[in-house]
C-alpha cells in the first residue's frame, strides 16, 4: 500500500493509519521528492519532519520509504567543500538551481566523476576487521584520505584491485565474512548521523588544543578532545572568536557548522579560508576545512540535523587518526529548531517552551567529543566548540545552563568588554576551564616548568584588580596606597597588553604559545621589580612616567613572533630602569 500525505502543518507532515515506515527513517515526501525524516510513529499517524519548504504540498501526494535512517556519505571530496545541513553540496545546487536554493531532488554528496590516485594497502587473503584502513588517496594537498572497512564488518579480502585512479563509486575490493556474505568495499561509505561511530575506548585528554589566542591558551585552555561553550549576546564577537579558532587552532581538520546563522558570514568564511594560508602547511586553510551552512532562512528541520551531520563527518576523520575540531555556531539556533518542531508536534513544553529532552540531546551531542583509541588502533580526537546565543544576554536561560553542564570550558563573552572594543571579549572573571589540572603536565614538560605558576599569578592580579576597582569606582584611584596602585597599573598591562588581541594584525592574530609564556613572564618580571621600588616608599608614578608600562602594552606588536630573544633585552631594560630608580 502506498503511503500518502494526510496533514500538513509547517515543516511537519502526517501520514494516516499504521504504516511500514520505521522511526528515524528517511523518506521522500510529495511529487517533488522533498527529503524528510520519520520522527513519531503510532497506530493512528506517522509524523514526518520535512527538511525543505512545504509550500504547495497537497494531501494525497505520495510518501516514499527509503529503508535507511538519515545518513550521510563519507568519502574523499568532503574536505574543502560546502554543504547544507543534510550534506547536499551547495555548489552543485547552485549549478542546478541558480543563485536561489530550489526544492526537492536529491544530490549525491560526493563528486562521483572525480578520480583519486588510490594506493591499496591490502591484498587478497588479508583478514581485516571494522575500522581497518584498506586504501589511501590524497584528498587535498594536506589531507590523506584513509578508506576504512565499515565498523560492523570483518572478514577476508577478495578481488582487491591494484593501485590506480578510481572514483568514489568504484569497487576496490570485496570482503567475505565468516558466514560467506560478500560486501563491496569502496572509497565511500554511509553512516546514520544520529549514531556515534564506535571506538575502542576513551583516552585521557591531556594535550591542549593550541589556538594562538592568549586568553584561551594561557588562561582558559581547552584539551584536544574537550568541549567548550562560548556564550554571548549579539555583537559580543562569538562568530569572530569561532572564526579565529577555526583559522589558527592546531587540529588537522576543521568542521565549521553555521547553524541558523547569517548567509554573509558563511560567504566570508568561504572566501577568507580559501585566501588565508595555514601556518603549518603553507597551503590554503580551506584544504583542511569543511563548511556546513544551514543559514537562518534555510529550512528549520535541516538546521536541527546540521550539527549531527557535522559531528558525523568529524568522527569519520577521527577514525582515520586525525585530530578534528568542530565549531558549531550556534547551538542556540539548533535548540530553537528543536523547540519549533516540538511545538508543531504539540509536545508538553518545559523551560521557556523548550522540550523536556533538550538537556539529554545536548549531552548526547557534547559526549561525541573526546580523545579516543580508534578501532584500527590509531588515536584521534574531536574537540567541540559550541557558540551559545542566550536570549537577552541572560546566561540563566536553559540552553546556556544545560550547555554549561556538559562542557568543561566556559568562555563567557561580555557586552561591556565588547562595547569597549576589547576583543576577544572573554570575561576573565566568570569564564573557567576545568582542563587546567589535566593539562598542567603538558605545559610544564613542553613550555616551561613554571608556566602554570605564571598563569596563577596573572589570574590573581586580575582578581585583585577586580576587587580594587570596586573601591576605585566609589572614591577614585588617587587615594589608593602605592602597592595597590601598582596592581592596577600592572593589571592594565595584562588586560590591554596581554588579554586583548588584535585579529587584524599579522603577528597578533596568532601568537605561538612560547611567546605567550614570555609575555606573561616579562609582565610578572616588571611587577616583581616594581614591587621593590614601592617597598622603598618610592611612588609608582616614577616608574609609570618612564613609559615602561606602555612599552609592555605594545610588546605584542613590537616583538615579532619569530624573534623571541627580544624579550631578553626587554627584561634587561626593565632591570636597568628600575636599577636607576632604586639608585
Amino acid at each position, binding site marked *: 500500500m502506498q503511503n500518502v500525505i*494526510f*496533514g*500538513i*502543518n*509547517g515543516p511537519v507532515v*502526517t501520514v494516516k493509519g499504521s504504516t511500514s515506515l520505521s522511526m528515524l527513517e528517511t523518506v521522500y515526501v510529495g511529487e517533488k521528492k522533498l527529503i524528510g525524516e520519520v520522527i513519531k510513529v503510532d497506530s493512528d499517524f506517522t509524523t514526518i519532519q520535512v527538511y525543505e519548504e512545504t*509550500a*504547495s*504540498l*497537497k*494531501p494525497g501526494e505520495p510518501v516514499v520509504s527509503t529503508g535507511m535512517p538519515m545518513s550521510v556519505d563519507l568519502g574523499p571530496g568532503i574536505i574543502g567543500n*560546502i554543504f547544507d545541513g543534510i550534506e547536499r553540496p*551547495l*555548489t552543485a*545546487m*547552485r549549478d542546478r538551481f*541558480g*543563485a*536561489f*536554493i530550489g526544492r526537492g531532488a536529491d544530490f549525491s554528496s560526493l563528486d562521483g566523476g572525480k578520480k583519486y590516485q588510490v594506493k591499496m594497502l591490502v591484498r587478497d587473503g588479508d583478514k581485516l576487521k571494522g575500522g581497518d584502513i584498506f586504501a589511501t588517496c590524497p584528498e587535498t594537498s594536506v589531507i590523506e584520505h584513509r578508506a576504512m572497512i565499515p565498523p560492523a564488518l570483518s572478514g577476508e579480502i577478495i578481488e582487491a584491485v591494484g593501485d590506480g585512479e578510481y572514483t568514489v563509486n568504484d569497487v576496490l575490493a570485496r570482503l567475505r565474512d565468516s558466514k560467506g556474505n560478500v560486501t563491496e568495499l569502496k572509497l565511500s561509505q554511509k553512516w546514520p548521523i544520529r549514531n556515534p561511530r564506535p571506538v575502542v575506548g576513551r583516552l585521557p585528554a591531556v594535550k591542549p588544543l593550541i589556538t594562538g589566542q592568549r586568553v584561551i591558551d594561557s588562561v582558559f585552555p581547552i584539551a584536544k578532545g574537550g568541549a567548550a561553550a562560548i556564550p554571548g*549576546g*549579539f*555583537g559580543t564577537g562569538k562568530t569572530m572568536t569561532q572564526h579565529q579558532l577555526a583559522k589558527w587552532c592546531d587540529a588537522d581538520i576543521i568542521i565549521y557548522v553555521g547553524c*541558523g546563522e*547569517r*548567509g*554573509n558570514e*558563511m*560567504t*566570508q568564511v*568561504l*572566501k577568507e579560508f580559501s585566501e588565508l594560508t595555514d601556518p603549518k602547511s603553507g597551503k590554503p586553510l580551506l584544504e583542511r576545512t569543511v563548511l556546513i551552512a544551514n*543559514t*537562518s*532562512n*534555510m529550512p*528549520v528541520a535541516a538546521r536541527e540535523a546540521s550539527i549531527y551531520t557535522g559531528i558525523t563527518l568529524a568522527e569519520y576523520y577521527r577514525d582515520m587518526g586525525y585530530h578534528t575540531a568542530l565549531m558549531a555556531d550556534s547551538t542556540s*539556533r539548533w535548540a*530553537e*529548531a528543536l*523547540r*519549533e518542531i516540538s*511545538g508543531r508536534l504539540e509536545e508538553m513544553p518545559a523551560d*521557556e*517552551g523548550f522540550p523536556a529532552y533538550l538537556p539529554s540531546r545536548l549531552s548526547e551531542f557534547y559526549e561525541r567529543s573526546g580523545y579516543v583509541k580508534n578501532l584500527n588502533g590509531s588515536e584521534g580526537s574531536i574537540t567541540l566548540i559550541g557558540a551559545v546565543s542566550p*536570549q*537577552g*544576554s*541572560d546566561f540563566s536561560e536553559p540552553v546556556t545552563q544545560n550547555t554549561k553542564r556538559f562542557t568543561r570550558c566556559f568562555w563567557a563573552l561580555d*557586552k561591556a568588554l565588547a*562595547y*569597549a*572594543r576589547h576583543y576577544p571579549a572573554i570575561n576573565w572573571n566568570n569564564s573557567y576551564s576545568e582542563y587546567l589540572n589535566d593539562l598542567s603536565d603538558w605545559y610544564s614538560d613542553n613550555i616551561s616548568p613554571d608556566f602554570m605558576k605564571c598563569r596563577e599569578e596573572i589570574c590573581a592580579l586580575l582578581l585583585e584588580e577586580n576587587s580594587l576597582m570596586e573601591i576605585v*569606582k566609589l*572614591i*577614585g584611584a*588617587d587615594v589608593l596606597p602605592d602597592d595597590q596602585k601598582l596592581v592596577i597599573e600592572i593589571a592594565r598591562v595584562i588586560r*590591554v597588553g596581554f588579554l586583548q588581541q588584535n585579529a587584524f594584525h599579522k603577528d597578533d592574530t596568532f601568537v605561538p604559545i612560547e611567546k605567550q609564556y614570555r609575555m606573561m613572564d616579562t609582565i610578572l618580571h616588571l611587577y616583581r621589580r616594581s614591587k621593590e621600588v614601592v617597598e622603598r616608599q618610592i611612588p609608582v608614578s616614577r616608574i609609570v612616567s618612564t613609559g615602561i608600562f*606602555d612599552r609592555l*602594552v605594545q610588546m605584542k606588536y613590537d616583538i615579532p613572533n619569530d624573534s623571541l630573544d627580544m624579550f631578553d633585552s626587554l627584561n634587561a631594560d626593565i632591570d636597568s630602569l628600575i636599577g636607576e630608580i632604586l639608585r
Partner: protein
Amino acid sequence: MIIRHLKLSEINGSLVALDNVKDASNEEIVSLELADGTKRLGRVVKIDGEKVTIQVFEGTRGLSMSNVTTTFTGTTMEIPLSPEILGRTFDGLCRPIDGLGEVFPDERRDVNGAPINPVSREYPRNFIQTGISSIDALATLIRGQKLPIFSGSGMKHNELAVQLVRQSTISDSGDFAIVFAAMGVKNDVAMYFKNSFRDANVMDRVVMLLNLANDPIIERIMTPKCALTIAEYLAFTLHKHVLVIMTDMTSYCEALREYSSSKGEIPGRKGFPGYLYSDLASLYERAGMIDGVEGSVTQIPILTMPNDDITHPIPDLTGYITEGQIVLDRGLDYKGIFPPVSVLPSLSRLMKDSIGEGFTREDHPTLANQLLATYAQVQDAKALASVIGEDELGAEDKLLIEFGKRFEERFINQGFGENRSITETLDLGWELLSMLPRNMLERVDDKTAEKYYKGQESKE
C-alpha cells in the same frame, strides 16, 4: 473546474476552518466571497486530511458560518511585477491604492522567495557614505547589509531614516530605488515619509507599501514579504541598488504573535511564537548581493523597543540576525542631540572588511577603535563623577569628561540637513582626539599618530 465551498466549519480570530476539502495545497491562496459581494483573501496554513485551516488577511469581521463562498486559487501568494511599479503606492498585500489602476505584470512571483545559496552570495564590501558622522565612522553602512535602527517611541528614528535616504550615496551610477514598507505605523508617519521622498525628489524611484495602524493586522504579516519580493525583483532582475526601509518591525512581530495565539500554538518568550527567530530571519536574510549579478538589496528595518528594553525578544532576535545595529539613546535625545545614536552598543559587523586603505582612508579603523575605547572610558569617568562629584576627579578623568561632552556635541550631533563627507568626519574625529595627551591613546600606533594626531606627546 473550480470548486466553490459554501460553508465554514469554524471561525476563530483571523482563522477559519473548512471541512470536506479535497484538493487544497499548503500555503495556497483562497478567495472568500461574502454575501454582499465583497472579497477577501486568505492563505492555507494547516491541512488535516479534509479539514483545512485558512488565515484571512483582512480579518474575519462579519463572517458567519454560512454567508461565505470559498474558492481555492491553486497558487501560492504571488504578486505582479513590472518596471512600472516604481513610483506606485500599494496596500499591505500589494494591491494599488493610488488610483492609477492595476499593474500589468511582466512576471508574477511567489512572495515567500527562496533563500540565497551561501555559495552564490557576494560578500558585501562597498561602503555607503551616509553623511552622518556617527554612522559613517563608527557603524559603517555597507551595500547589501541589513542594519536595523533600534529606537523607542518618541525618538527621532523617522527623521534619521529620511536623512539616510536623502544623503546615502547608495550607488555609483545613480541607478537606485527605494522600497518603503510601513507596518502598523500611524497615518501621519506615512505622510511624513511620503512628503520627505517628494522633497528629496526621489518619488519616481520609490515603491510604497502601506499597512497603516488601522489596517487589518493579518495583512501586516504579508507586507514585508511583498516588499522584499519587489526589492529582489528591482535588484536582481532590473539590476538596481535597492534600499528597503521597513517600519515598524515591532508591529509586525505583534501581528505574528496575534496570529500565532489564535492558531493555538505554544508560545515562547513573552507570548511570541517559538519560530519568531526563523520568521524574522526569512525576512532579514533577503538582503544581500549575488555573485556576478549587478544590483543589491540593503535593508534598514526600524523597530521601537518596547519600554526601551534592548533585551526584549524583538530587538534581541533581530540583533542576532542582522549585521549590526544602530541604537538610539533617550538620554542623548533629551539633550537635544540629533541623531541620538548611542555609539557604544551600535555596531556594523561588515565594516571591518570594508573600511581603511582602499575603501575609506587608512586611519579609519584605528580612529574608530580609539574613539569607542575612549568614549567607553568617558562612561566610567561619568559614573565616578556621579558618586564623588566632578570636582574631585583626577586630571585624566576631568579631561575625559570634557572630551565626552565635545564628542557628543560636535561629533554625534549634526544638523538634519548636514551632510558630512567621510574625510570631514574622520578629520573631526582626530581633532577631538587631539585634545587628549598621546599616552591616553592606546589603540593608536605611532605611524598613524604622526600623520593625524595633533595633540601633545604627554601631559607632564
